[in-house]
């Protein structure tokens, strides 16, 4: 316990961080360890190439986008605070958290999760997924298996499905509606307290029904 506290004390503003993200001290420590492990040069912040060094991530077709999501525009580094906050998107939606009317929306709320996903598509940050942006993602994910023409038709069709105001782009509102109805993969980032080892479980597919009533 003593070591826990001493590690926690090393992190600045740890209370605020926990308040904002809902992570427990054990999680923070675990994430801090991971952060330090990624930060090989010990600068106290991470650069894109630190992420790039993760082997599996380099193989991920949309890995660079995910890395990009950690860096706010114009910034080349990410500090521990931001790192944790980004990861907090993946915590499961708290069901029991008391709803205080004036408290800000928690990071792991459903709509914030969706926003996170949305910005992975929306690379030029204009609030809309254009056909080209969609095509890029599709190309990355489908790769060589389909021809460009097929990709384009898929992209067109996808936009058609979601596009409600017929401007050939998907806005966040449309994105949210498209994902609204049913069992729809939702981020879950479950961390079980009390365990020495941080358990991050990102579950999907099975449980989204619970998210329905939150809308």
């Amino acid at each position: 316990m003593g070591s826990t506290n001493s590690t926690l004390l090393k992190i600045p503003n740890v209370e605020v961080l926990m308040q904002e993200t809902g992570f427990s001290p054990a999680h923070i420590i675990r994430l801090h360890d991971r952060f330090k492990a990624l930060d090989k040069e010990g600068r106290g912040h991470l650069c894109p190439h630190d992420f790039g060094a993760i082997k599996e991530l380099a193989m991920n077709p949309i890995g660079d986008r995910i890395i990009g999501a950690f860096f706010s525009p114009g910034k080349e580094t990410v500090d521990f605070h931001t790192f944790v906050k980004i990861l907090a998107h993946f915590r499961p939606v708290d069901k029991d958290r008391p709803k205080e009317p004036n408290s800000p929306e928690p990071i792991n709320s459903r709509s914030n999760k969706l926003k996170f996903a949305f910005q992975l598509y929306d690379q030029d940050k204009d609030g809309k997924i254009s056909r080209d942006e969609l095509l890029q993602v599709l190309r990355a994910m489908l790769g060589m298996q389909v021809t460009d023409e097929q990709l384009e038709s898929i992209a067109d069709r996808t936009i058609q499905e979601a596009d409600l105001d017929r401007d050939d782009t998907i806005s966040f509102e449309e994105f949210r509606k498209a994902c609204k109805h049913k069992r729809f993969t939702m981020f879950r980032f479950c961390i079980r307290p009390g365990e020495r080892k941080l358990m991050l479980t990102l579950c999907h597919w099975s449980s989204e029904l619970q998210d329905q009533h939150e809308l």
Partner: protein
Amino acid sequence: MASSVYLCLLRAVFLVCFVNPLIQGLSEDESVFQNPHHQQEENLTGLPIVTFKWHHVETPYLVIIWVFVAGLAKLSVVELNHHVISVVPESGLLIILGFILGGIVWGADRAQTFKLLPPTFFYYLLPQIILDASYFMPNKLFFSNLGAILIYAIFGTCWNAATVGLSLWGCYEAGVMGNLDIGLLQFLLFGSLIAAVDPVAVIAVFEEVHVNEVLFILVFGESLLNDGVTVVLYNVFDAFVALGGPRIDAAEIFKGIFSFVVVAFGGSFLGIGFAILLSLLTRCTKHIQIIEAGFVFVVGYLAYLTAEMLSLSAILSITFCGICCQKYVNANMDEKSVTTVRHAMKLLANGSETMIFLFLGVTAIDTEIWVWNTGFILLTLLFVFIYRIIGTFLFTWMLNKFRLVPIEVIDQVVMSYGGLRGAVAYGLAALLDEDKIPEKNLMISTTLIVVYFTVILQGITMKPLVQWLKVKRAAHSDLKLIEKLNNRAFDHILAAVEDICGRIGDNWWTRGWNRFEENYISWLLMKPKARKNRDYLFSIFHKLNLEDAINYVSEGERQGSLAFSRSDEAANVDFKKQFGSEFADVMPNIMVDMSNYELGIEHFSVTSIVKDTIPSVSLDIHGQDRKNAMDDINAHHLLQQHLYRSRKHHRHKYSRSHFSINQNEDEVQEIFQRTMRSRLESFKSTKMGVNPAKKITKHHKKELTHKMPNGHPDGTGHLYGDEVDIAVGSETGAINSTFMRDTYTVGAGIENPVFLPDMDSPTHSPPWLMETEAVAPSQRAQRRLPWTPNRLRRLAPMRISTCSTDSFLMADVSLTLEEHEEHSQTDHVEMRPVFD
């Protein structure tokens, strides 16, 4: 209502009048069946014109009659359910109907002459149900919940068996049941056979209730796997009973547990082995498409029987065979075969299910098996019910410690209430050896009562319960591309976040498996062709497009004509494009139809958009020339020429090995080649002033001079060629319009000069409508194939200068040009001067 009552009456009459006399004949001399001519020869006085040979056909006749009756029963039950009551589930109604039928039989015979025998059930009725269930198992759901399912199936079943057996024994020892000749082992044996939730019953009830899919897969998966477990358990206890109490020591118990593991896992692996065999087999059944669907059933059944032979778990074997092979088999087989499998599988499974429930009812009407022991029967019912609930809650409680998404209390209630027992339990009870278990009949009757109780009563109350508890229902959802896309993206995101957090999690394993599967297993088990375009997103896209196309056509037809509704331009473009990319190579007829049609209807509206959006191969050669307003006569003429007429008089009406008599891959290819060739010729001759390659023109020109009525030697003017001319002319402005008109009228004759000599029928149908096998030119054309792409390639540089590139782009896609790459390069150099 009326119809169902009528049906019931009809059946009753039918049974009494017809079946019963036949059944009575059953017990008569068996040797007659062996030697059917025996009787005949004896009293042969003259040549009999007609003889009644009942014993000749007795067995198959009875079988088929009962199948027929089961079918009628299903029909009437469904009718009844539709109109009268939708309270009782079909399975329950079938059992009740079985009572009635059994009563009729019994009333006629004063004895039970028909009942469900264990071999019939296990060898002929059960396998297809299990195969169906596993073959259509939603794999992703199943495997992501596999842990929970296994816990329920293995430990839950053992728990049920042990607790029910032990509690009954305890009560027996306490003297509740009076004097019975049952020992502890027999009780455990009984417990094991009554323990398993029955997949047949569960599917029948839960399918009508539509609970959410996690709950469904838990109950369904459990029922499927625990059947295997219960059979294994039953065999172990059976062996123990045979061994006798005193001789069972620690070693025997250990052996029992070991054999349990071996039998269960051995069966599963055997099933996987057969799945691999089946997948490999379907890789190379391309040329026997008609029967390839049969392999699924045969190999599945083989998996079942082989496991039975090796005394491994047959149910687990066929389950895993179905689950593992579905993906590869579906990808390997022709789409039609996949449909065949789907329908045949459903047919068999549904039929078996009907028969099982009906026969379970019929079986009950038998005075012999009914032994009443109030204590035993009621206590069994009670324990089965209670321990199911306790077991479910216990194991769910343990599972919820590990599950990310806990199973809710309501779901647990439904799960425990859904513990329906079925025919497997009865089959096992009927298999009991009367020598070893003196109270066999008591066990059978108890089992039957448990089955009836759970299937009928719990089945009836299941729906209200689900409604009352407000169990989450399955959300009905349309297939949506964006959703699938997001799912895919989220998979990647989650895996990436796990990487960033530095944890090996579920997604890491999933991804690792997917990669392995993609690289090795698919490579081994899937056709290269199927592998290429089997991307999930793409197949969804394909499916959606197919749906759209079908809707589109049916909508058009619903509105009274084949004229596709064209409410707005966008929809049309969309349709064209999808068609262009998806089906052009498959359904050229429709493409041609469509384009011709548009030619007549709308000359201007769509063209500018469509032109750019028709990709890849298509015979939609008219995409180019719609700008030229052609008059209606021409349009009609084109229709006449291009529409693919029926070829009835050229074809056999029946073929054992081909469904699609009028659709032929070669034919499509043939049409395409001819079209391209003639267009090419006319293109060159008219536009460039270059004579077509000698090889071809020699042949054609000779005939042209003979056959052309107005003897226009220049007019290689085949219809298609003209259109290209027109298109090119209009766009490049190289050819003036009078010339166009001129060439057009030449080509516009009804008879198509290029192909005239090849026609061997007097009809005016264009030669490309002929069946390829029968007509000479097809072979010739195919032999000439090699130079077609080459020549096309030579023209490829032209693309840069002219706008009318689509016609050549079309050729690019379908023909493998890569092979000719270097070759065409040199060609191109040679041809330069000519073009310049």
